[in-house]
C-alpha cells in the first residue's frame, strides 16, 4: 500500500492501462508535449510517443468524433477535455453518435471522456461548471464521478475497460488536495455501484464528488452533537445505484441530497423522485436537496463561496431534518 493524490491516481490508471493494452490511447488539447493542462499526462509523450498521446487541434467535436471512429474499429480512446466546460462543443457527437450507436445498430463505442469539472478554484463561469447534468438524461451514456483517489483509479480503469461511452468527471479541486492508500495490485471499481462512505443511522446524506468531503466534515461535527450520519457516495451518476439509495432510506428514514451541480433539474432531483416513488412509506421527513445556486459560477471569492454548498449548509439542513 502507498499513498497517492487524486491526480496521481488518475495518472497511474492511464499509465497502467496504456501499458497493459495497446489499443488504449489518449487525445486532447495539450496532453502531449505539455503533459496536460493539469499535468495529468506528464511524461506520457516521452514514454508512449506522439501516436499514442495525441495533441489535437482546438476542435472538441472533431476529436471526439475521431475517438468514436477509432473505438468502432477496435481502439479504446481516452479523450481529455481540457476543462469540462468545453464538453459542450462535443455535445452532438456524444449524444447523437456515441450514446446511440449500440442501441441503434449494435456497435459498441468504448470511449472515455475525461472532464475536469467543479469549482472552488476561482475559475469563473467557464472553468468551474459541473457538466454531469447535461448528459444525465441521455440514455446510452454512463457517467462516473469519483471522490477519492482510490475510486479515481479504480473507476477510470473500469471506464477504460467498459465497452460503452463513459464520461469520467474528475474534480479539479480534489486533484492535489486529497490522498488515499492504494494497493499494489490491479483493481477496478465497478461502474453502477455506490459506496457507503460513512455508516450511520439518523440521517442519510446522498452525494458525490468533492461534496463527499464536505459531508464527511459536517458528519464529524454532527457526531459531536449526537447525530449519526450515513453518507452514500454515489460514485456512478448514470446509471444510478438505486438499490443503495433505497437501502439507506429504509434505514434512516431521513434524507439529504447534496451535490455541487446547480439545483434545478440536477441529479438530486432524480434521486429525490426515485425515493418518493419507491420509498414513500419509509420517509419520516421531506427530502432536502442542497446544491449550488441557480446561476452561472460567479468569480469573486465571496460570491463563489455562497454559490457552492458549504459545511454550514449541510449542518443546517441535517439539524433541521433531525428536529422535524
Amino acid at each position, binding site marked *: 500500500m502507498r499513498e497517492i493524490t487524486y491526480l496521481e491516481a488518475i495518472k497511474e490508471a492511464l499509465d497502467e492501462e496504456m501499458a497493459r493494452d495497446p489499443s488504449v*490511447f489518449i487525445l486532447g488539447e495539450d496532453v502531449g508535449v505539455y503533459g496536460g493542462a493539469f499535468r495529468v499526462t506528464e511524461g506520457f509523450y516521452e514514454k508512449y510517443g506522439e*501516436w*499514442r498521446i*495525441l495533441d*489535437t*487541434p482546438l*476542435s472538441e*467535436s*472533431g*476529436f*471526439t*468524433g*475521431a*475517438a*468514436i*471512429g*477509432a*473505438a*468502432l*474499429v*477496435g*481502439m479504446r*480512446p481516452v479523450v481529455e477535455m481540457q476543462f469540462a466546460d468545453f464538453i459542450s462543443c462535443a455535445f*452532438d*457527437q456524444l449524444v*447523437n*453518435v456515441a450514446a*446511440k*450507436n*449500440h*442501441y*441503434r*445498430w*449494435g*456497435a*459498441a*463505442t*468504448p470511449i472515455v471522456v475525461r472532464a475536469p469539472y467543479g469549482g472552488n478554484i476561482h475559475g469563473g463561469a467557464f472553468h468551474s461548471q459541473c457538466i454531469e447534468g447535461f448528459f444525465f438524461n441521455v*440514455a*446510452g451514456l*454512463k457517467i462516473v464521478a469519483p471522490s477519492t483517489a482510490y475510486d479515481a483509479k479504480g473507476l477510470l480503469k473500469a471506464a477504460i475497460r*467498459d*465497452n*460503452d461511452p463513459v464520461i469520467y468527471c474528475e474534480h479539479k479541486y480534489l486533484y492535489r488536495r486529497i490522498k488515499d492508500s492504494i494497493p499494489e495490485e490491479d483493481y477496478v471499481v*465497478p*461502474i*453502477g455501484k455506490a459506496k457507503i462512505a460513512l455508516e450511520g443511522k439518523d440521517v442519510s446524506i446522498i452525494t458525490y464528488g468533492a461534496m463527499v468531503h464536505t459531508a464527511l466534515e459536517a458528519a464529524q461535527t454532527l457526531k459531536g452533537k449526537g447525530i449519526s450520519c450515513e453518507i452514500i457516495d454515489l460514485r456512478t451518476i448514470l*446509471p444510478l445505484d438505486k*438499490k443503495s439509495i433505497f437501502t439507506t432510506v429504509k434505514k434512516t428514514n431521513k434524507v439529504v441530497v447534496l451535490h455541487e451541480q446547480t439545483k434545478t433539474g440536477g441529479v438530486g432531483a432524480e434521486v429525490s423522485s426515485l425515493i418518493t416513488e419507491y420509498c414513500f412509506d419509509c420517509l419520516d421527513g421531506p427530502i432536502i436537496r442542497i446544491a449550488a445556486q441557480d446561476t452561472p459560477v460567479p468569480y469573486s471569492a465571496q460570491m463563489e463561496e455562497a454559490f457552492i454548498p458549504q459545511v454550514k449548509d449541510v449542518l443546517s439542513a441535517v439539524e433541521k431534518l433531525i428536529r422535524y
Partner: protein
Amino acid sequence: MDIKREDLLQLYYYLKLTRRLEDRVTSLYHQGKILGGAWTSNGTEAVSVGYGYALEKNDIAAPYFRDMGVFLIRGISAKRIIAQYFGKRTGVTGGKEGNVHIGDLNFGVIGFPSHLADNYPVGAGAALAFKIRGEKRIAVACTGDGGTSRGDFHEGMNFAATRKLPMVFICNNNQYAYSTPLRLQMNIKDIAERALAYGIPSKIVDGNNVVEVYKAAKEAYEVARNGGGPTFIECKTMRMHGHSEHDSAKYVPRELLEEWKKKDPIVNMEKYLWENTIAKKEEMDSIDVRVKKEIEEAEAFADESPYPEPEDGMKGLYATPIAEE
C-alpha cells in the same frame, strides 16, 4: 488505369440494383407500405457505387443517407434493407432504426445519425486507428453539399489533414440540400475549394459517370493507403427526386431536371458498355433480369418477416450491462 471487364459489369450491376431497390421503395412508399419516410439517391447512384466498389474488403466506409450503393456493395443484402424499411425484426437494425439509417460493422459500414457530416470526424477516427496500428486499411466518408456547411465537416477534414490520415472524403454535390440551392449555401463555385483550406488535395469528377468516380476513388485510396494523406473528391451530380420521397421538389427549376435527366448515370453506363463493345445486350439484359428477381425476393422476404416485440425496444442500450447483484 485499366478496369477489368468483370468490374465494369459489376459496376453496372450495382447501379441497376441500387436504382431498382430505391424505385421499389419509392413505389411502396406511395402505396403507404413504408414505415415513416423514404430517402433515395436517385440520379446520384454513380457516386456511391463508384466510391463503394473501389474499396477493399477490409476498408471502412462512413457513408450518409444517399449511399444505398455502398450498403449493397459492401454486402448488406437488399432483403435486410427492405425489411428495415418495413420496420421488421429481420431488418438491418432489427427495428431499432428505420429507412436508410444503416450500419453494420460486419460489413465495414459505420452507422450514421441524421446529423450530417458527423460521419466525417468518425471516419477520420477509423483512419487514425489504422495509422496507429500500422494497418494498410483506409476509411472513406461521404456527405452531401448540405453537410459541408456544418462544423464537423471542417473539424473532420482538419483533423485528418493535420495527422495525414489514410482517409478519403467524398462529397455528393447534388446541388440541393432539401430546398436550399447551392447559391444559398456557399459563396464558392466548387466545394473542392474547401479542401484547400485544410491542405487537402482535391478532385472534381462527373458524379454521373461511375467509371470516372471509380477511378478517382481508387487512385485516392491508393494515395491514402501508401501514407499520402487524405484526398477530397467532389462529385458533381443532380438530385433527381425531392429531398425525400414526400417532397415533390417544386423548387427545382424544370429545365435543370430535364438537362440532368439526359445524363442519367445508368443510361451513361449502358452507352459506355455498348459503344466500347464491353458487354453484349444479352449480358446487360440478364443483369436486368437478375436485379429484378433479387429485389422481388428481397421484398417477399421482407413481407413475410415478423415485426419485433415491443419489449425488444428495451434491449441493447449498453454493450456492457451493469451487473446485477
